[in-house]
C-alpha cells in the first residue's frame, strides 16, 4: 500500500503533467454538474419567487417539504430515478440509464431544493419598499420581480454555487444513474470511489485536489465580485 506522501506526490505529478484520463474525468464532472445547475436554476429561482411573494394555500407545507428535501441522500435520488429510467420503468423507453443525461437529471433533483431554499431565503430578506418602489415607478409584476432578483443577485449567485458544490461532490446518484463508464460517465467522485477500492490512491487524491481547488476558485470569485460592487465607504463620513 502506498504511503500518503507518496500518493500525494504522484497525484501532483498527474495534475501538472496533464494526465489525459484524469482531465477527461474532471471534464465529465463539470459538464454534468454545470448543466444540472444551469438547467435547474430558472425553475428554482421562479419557484422561490413564487414562494416568497405569493400567499397560497399549502405554502407552508411546500416550504416544510422543501426543507426536508435538503437532507435527501444522493443514493435515494439515484435509486428512485434508477427505477423510473430502468428498462421496465415508466420512462424505460427513453433509454437514458447510464448516460450523462441521467446523471444530469439526478443532480437536478438533488440541487433543486437547495437552490430554491437559498433563493427563497434571499428574496424574503428583500426590503418591502423595493417592490413598492418598482411598482409605483411603473414596473409591471414581471419587471418588478426581475428588479428584486437584481437586488439580491449575489445571494442568488451564492445559491447557484452552493448548488454546484452539492452536486459536484455527490457520488451516490452519479454512480447509480451514470454507471461509472470510463470516458463517458465516470466523474471525479465515482472515479475516486473506484480507484480507492483498487488501492490506487494517487489518482483519487489528485481528483480530490481538483475538486477542492475548483470549489475554492468559485467561492473566491464570488467574494471578489461582491467586493467589487462596494465603493469607498464615504457614506460613513
Amino acid at each position, binding site marked *: 500500500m502506498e504511503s500518503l506522501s507518496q500518493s500525494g506526490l504522484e497525484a501532483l505529478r498527474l495534475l501538472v503533467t496533464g494526465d489525459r484520463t484524469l482531465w477527461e474525468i474532471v471534464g465529465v464532472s463539470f459538464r454534468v454538474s454545470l448543466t444540472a445547475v444551469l438547467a435547474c436554476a430558472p425553475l428554482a429561482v421562479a419557484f422561490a419567487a413564487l414562494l416568497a411573494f405569493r400567499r397560497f394555500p399549502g405554502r407552508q407545507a411546500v416550504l416544510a417539504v422543501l426543507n426536508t428535501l435538503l437532507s435527501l441522500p444522493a443514493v435515494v435520488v439515484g435509486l428512485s430515478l434508477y427505477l423510473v429510467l430502468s428498462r421496465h420503468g415508466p420512462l424505460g423507453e427513453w433509454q437514458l440509464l447510464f448516460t450523462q443525461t441521467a446523471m444530469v437529471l439526478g443532480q437536478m433533483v438533488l440541487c433543486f431544493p437547495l437552490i430554491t431554499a437559498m433563493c427563497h431565503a434571499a428574496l424574503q430578506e428583500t426590503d418591502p*419598499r423595493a417592490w413598492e*418602489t418598482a411598482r*409605483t415607478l*411603473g414596473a409591471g409584476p414581471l419587471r418588478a420581480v426581475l428588479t428584486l432578483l*437584481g437586488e439580491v443577485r449575489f445571494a442568488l449567485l451564492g445559491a447557484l454555487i452552493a448548488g454546484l458544490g452539492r452536486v459536484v461532490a455527490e457520488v451516490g446518484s452519479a454512480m447509480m444513474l451514470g454507471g461509472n463508464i470510463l470516458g463517458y460517465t465516470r466523474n471525479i467522485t465515482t472515479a475516486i470511489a473506484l480507484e480507492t477500492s483498487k488501492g490506487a490512491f494517487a489518482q483519487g487524491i489528485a481528483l480530490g485536489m481538483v475538486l477542492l481547488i475548483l470549489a475554492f476558485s468559485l467561492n473566491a470569485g464570488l467574494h471578489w465580485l461582491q467586493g467589487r*460592487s462596494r*465603493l469607498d465607504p464615504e*457614506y460613513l463620513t
Partner: protein
Amino acid sequence: MNGTFGLRNIELSYGARRVLAGLDLDLLPGRCILLCGDNGAGKSSLLRVLAGLQPADRITVTGPEIPSPRRVARLLRDRTTYLHQHPYAFRGTVERNVAYALPRGGERVGRQARVEEALSWAGLDHLAKDDATRLSGGERQRLALARARLRPSPFLLLDEPTANLDGPSRSRTLELLHTFLEEGRGLVVATHDPAHFAPVCDIHLRLEGGRLRLAPPVSPPLDRAVEAG
C-alpha cells in the same frame, strides 16, 4: 388626463380595526393637499391605497364609467407616484435609479437627456455615477423626487417628505415640490409638521376616525413668521 381625479367611498380595515371609513377625496391638478393626523390615524394607509399599492376593501372612481376593481388598481398606479418616507434606492448608480422611472423602450439619446435633466433639476448631477445606496437622507429624498419627475403620472403622494431632514434639505425639497405644482401636478403630502408646508399648501385635511375633515389653514413656522414680520 389632467383633470380632477375623484375617489369615493374608500374603505379599509385591518382585521377588526377600521382604518378608512368610507372617505371621499378629490386629487386636484396643481394643488397641494396636506394630510395630517395622529400616529396610526391611517395617513400612510390612505396614501398607499391611493398609490394602488394597498388594495382597499372598497373604492370607486368618479367618471362616466365604473371600472372593475382590478382596473381601479391599475388606474391608481398609472395616475399616481408614491414616495416613501425613507425612499428606497436600487443597487447601482444614481443615474440608473433615476432612469428606472422612464417608461421602457424609446430612443437612448432621448432617455439619457431626460435623465440628465431630472438629475440637474434635483441637484444630483454631480452624484450621477455614485452608488445610490450610499446617499444621505436628503439626497435620497431628491433622488425619489427626480424619479417622480420622470413619471407621467399627474399626482404625487408623499409620505413625510421632510421628516428627519435638516433645514437646508427641507427648503430644497419644498422648492422642488413647488415646481411640481407650477407644472400642474397635484400633490398629497402626509405630515406631522403642517407648518413646514405652509408655503405650498392649498388644502389642509385632517384624518380622524377613518374620515377626513377640513382643518384650519396652515400658518408658517414661528421663525419664518418672525422673519416675514
